[in-house]
């Protein structure tokens, strides 16, 4: 058991625990805070996979922007400030059984997927840099078109969200 395996197991336990607590927490704000812990755990997974840029981007965007947005949205519903009962009802046992079967089936099918059977070669250090990603994003043969389409996607998201969320001023005000 190398050190990194122990770290990985601890981290995985933290993520699973906070994911379970997110779904079963009574108070919505507590659920949002457990979610933040799960996101930080995922960032640690990225760091352990030597994808440093993505670990930092995960913290920057998910914890720094999306989690805060979720907390703002939770606060918008005034009932969030009250305690609620446990989010279980009578059908929870049957649901747990069905979801468990689907989960095990998915895991088995992914485990025996032919594409995952071969072991991958680790990238060389000069291929791991962010500069390679940058070159790939601007090369017309590689990923330049998805790069530009992403900007249009972000523009559409911003316009759509402002259109929905912004209160309309009355005409002539």
């Amino acid at each position: 058991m190398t050190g990194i395996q122990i770290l990985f197991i601890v981290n995985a336990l933290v993520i699973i625990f906070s994911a379970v607590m997110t779904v079963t927490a009574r108070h919505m704000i507590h659920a949002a805070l457990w979610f933040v812990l799960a996101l930080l755990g995922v960032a640690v997974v990225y760091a352990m996979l030597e994808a440093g840029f993505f670990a930092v981007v995960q913290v920057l965007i998910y914890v720094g922007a999306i989690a805060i947005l979720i907390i703002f949205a939770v606060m918008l519903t005034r009932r969030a400030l009250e305690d609620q009962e446990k989010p279980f009802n009578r059908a929870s046992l049957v649901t747990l059984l069905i979801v468990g079967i689907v989960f095990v089936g998915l895991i088995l099918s992914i485990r025996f997927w032919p594409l995952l059977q071969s072991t991958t070669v680790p990238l060389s250090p000069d291929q791991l840099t962010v500069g390679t990603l940058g070159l790939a994003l601007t090369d017309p043969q590689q990923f330049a078109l998805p790069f530009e389409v992403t900007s249009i996607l972000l523009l559409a998201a911003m316009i759509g969200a402002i259109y929905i969320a912004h209160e309309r001023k009355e005409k002539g005000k």
Partner: protein
Amino acid sequence: MLHEWLYIGIFLTIALAIPAIALTIAGILSPKKPNPIKNSTYECGMETVGVSWIQFKVQYYIYGLVFLVFDVETVLLYPWAVAYNKVPLYGVLEGILFVFILASGLIYVWRKGALEWV
């Protein structure tokens, strides 16, 4: 490269532990005399009236949203900036096109009046 992340992990753990230890020491050293008046919620010296909720403005959410879009945009621009010295001129033009599309989004939000703090 993993040992660099190990250093940052160790540093974060120590940075979390030092204030926690300081707070525990102060918790041991300080007196503990709670009484109901001291423990009541602070409202400028008066008693709290009504249930504790606030009138939450949707403006906060809009700021968070625009911040999210610009954050994602900038994070996508960082690899472009790192590869800036090795890219010929059309690579720079691609980045400029990216920034233009999102700047037009900012202008839209501005003209809609969603950036006013009312």
